[in-house]
């Protein structure tokens, strides 16, 4: 009896040790996976020429509005967007430093600091289905705790819980194993079904780096979608401090 108890204890201990090892391996793998993705996408500065097509009804491809934007980025919280289309917005510039924003109106020559929208609202009405939170920079690893929930020959699927205040209750990220790039994200908001879907497509070498040139955000509740096309980009170019100064960003 004493021998059986001893064997049972050893067996249980062995099962526990292996289980913990498996859990540890999976947790480390999720972190490793996302860390690799973040490292591939990290830049100090960037300049990107983008086209953004907003479709109020994703089924109606004829009904859309196009915005052409040059985006300047520095670090995680600094960005300037300069609009060239539609022509009615030509020259309009939007500076974002963390939660603060300023807009330059070329028609009046005035700069205004603007009230912040909540994180889940569209960027000044022109972000389409991309909210402020969607467009905010920063590593995935800083924003979410991930675990691997599925794996096949080509992809990993990871579930992410937000580490800080977020408009999303959780996300699911699909990573391409060969490219180490995110190819799909599903977003939940305390709902049974996902509310948004982000798909990254048509990966190409742009400016010496493989990036998704077509990024589509679909609002699954509203039935709308927004497609961002990366026309060209420069990675880590030197950028003047003036580009991110509230006093001079439009000059």
């Amino acid at each position, binding site marked *: 009896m004493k021998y059986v108890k001893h064997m049972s204890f050893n067996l249980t201990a062995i099962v526990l040790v292996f289980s913990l090892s498996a859990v540890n391996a999976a947790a480390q793998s999720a972190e490793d996976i996302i860390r690799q993705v973040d490292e591939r996408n990290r830049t100090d500065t960037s300049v990107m020429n983008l086209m953004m097509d907003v479709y*109020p009804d994703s089924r109606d491809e004829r009904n859309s*509005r*196009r915005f052409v934007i040059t985006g300047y980025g520095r670090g995680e919280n600094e960005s300037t967007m300069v609009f*060239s*289309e*539609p*022509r*009615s917005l*030509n*020259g309009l510039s939007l500076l974002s430093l963390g939660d*603060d*924003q300023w807009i330059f109106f070329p*028609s*009046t*020559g*005035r700069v*205004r*600091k*603007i*009230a*912040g*929208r*909540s994180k889940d609202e569209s960027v000044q*009405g022109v972000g389409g289905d991309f909210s402020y939170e969607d467009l905010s920079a920063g590593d995935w690893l800083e924003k979410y705790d991930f675990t691997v929930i599925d794996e096949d020959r080509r992809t990993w699927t990871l579930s992410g819980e937000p580490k800080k205040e977020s408009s999303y209750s959780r996300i699911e990220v699909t990573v391409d194993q060969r490219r180490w790039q995110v190819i799909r994200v599903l977003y939940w908001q305390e709902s049974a079904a996902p509310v948004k879907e982000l798909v990254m497509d048509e990966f190409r070498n742009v400016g010496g780096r493989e990036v998704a040139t077509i990024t589509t955000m679909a609002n699954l509740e509203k039935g709308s979608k927004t497609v961002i096309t990366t026309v060209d980009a420069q990675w880590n*170019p*030197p950028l*003047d*401090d*003036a580009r991110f*100064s*509230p*006093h*001079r960003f439009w*000059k």
Partner: protein
Amino acid sequence: MKVFAVSFLVVCFLLTPPTSLPASPVDVYGYLVNFVGLTVRGDGPGLNGADVGYVLYLRLKGDWKPHESLTFHLEGDYTGSLGNQNPWALFDSYGILPFALSDDPTTDYVQTLAIDHAWARWSGAAADFTFGKQPLAWGTGYVFNPTSRASFSGFLDTVHEETPGTFSWLSSISPAWWLTFEGYLAFQDKTASTQVLLLENSWQYLPFGVRAKILAGPVDITTGLVRETADFAGTGIPEERTFVTGDAVAAVGPVGLYGEAAYLLPLGDGESDWDTWGALDVVLGIEWLLPGIPVTCRAEYYRQGKGASEKASYDFADLLTGRRSVLGMNYLFGDIEWTFLDYGRLNLSELVNLNDGSLILVPNIAWDFLADFTAEAGAMVFIGEDDDEFGGVADLSSGPVDLMEPSVYVKLKISF
């Protein structure tokens, strides 16, 4: 002068960043506005006493960056105005033109063509310099800007959007990320009068403005000194006044708060009727974005220190000469904008004279048929007693004239 010019060029070279992008092509763009306004006069029932006016407004703009540090910009406009939208016809109907239009049949009182902005800018890492005819638009207020003293901004102007250009130099320097000094020296008075007399351009009358802009955490603060010169009387001898100015703006979540103030100093022409509280013009405003729905609300209070607190003191000639945009002392502006069906905007604005209770209501609806084609319809309704500011029969030199008649309008705008 030579030493200064050479030194300036050396400093520019040293401050210019080492990298430079290829010269960009010229970017030409602009817009065309078609405006039709119907004013309901009191001469007959319904539309019998209505008259109509028309404006065709073309704004053409061009940008060229031959170098990363150099920018050239040009804006010209063409205006064709007819009927009650033609200022000559309007003033003639009021009986206040000092001449008859028919006296000079060779002058085209219908069309104007002008260069409004033409400037060049050099931008360095920490400084920039702009010269030419450029907009000088200071202040954070949406409707009233007591610190903006270089030119007139349109008031109740539904056609023009741009701040008029002023012949000037403008420069800024940023010794630190959070601090910028900016200043301008202008070479024409606020009214941009068409008379040109040497006395008007005496250095003693040159308008200028200097200010320090500070980023203090969530609040942007500006403080400065501005001299305004304006030939309101059209005599060629401008009035000259100096103001201490300040403004601040902060965004707290979905709420934006701003304030702007100008304090007249007892110097120059400001000395003659100066008093402590009459010298202060203040704007306080709030903007808030209603959560979850596409509605923006805005409220702005304006105190005009030299404004009239009594109806008997209203002088409508001040409006016609441009000395004032409003006559009274205390005003409240409110605006609600609702964005609907992705491409529509419904707007209701009001301006209340808090002293006499009269108000202007401006409802407006706009639809973006295409990204660059917008159609609008709106109205301007004046509510008040006859002797109220927005009531509003003005006692002009030619006799009583109703300046505040209701109107409706349609506006089409294509951008290219």
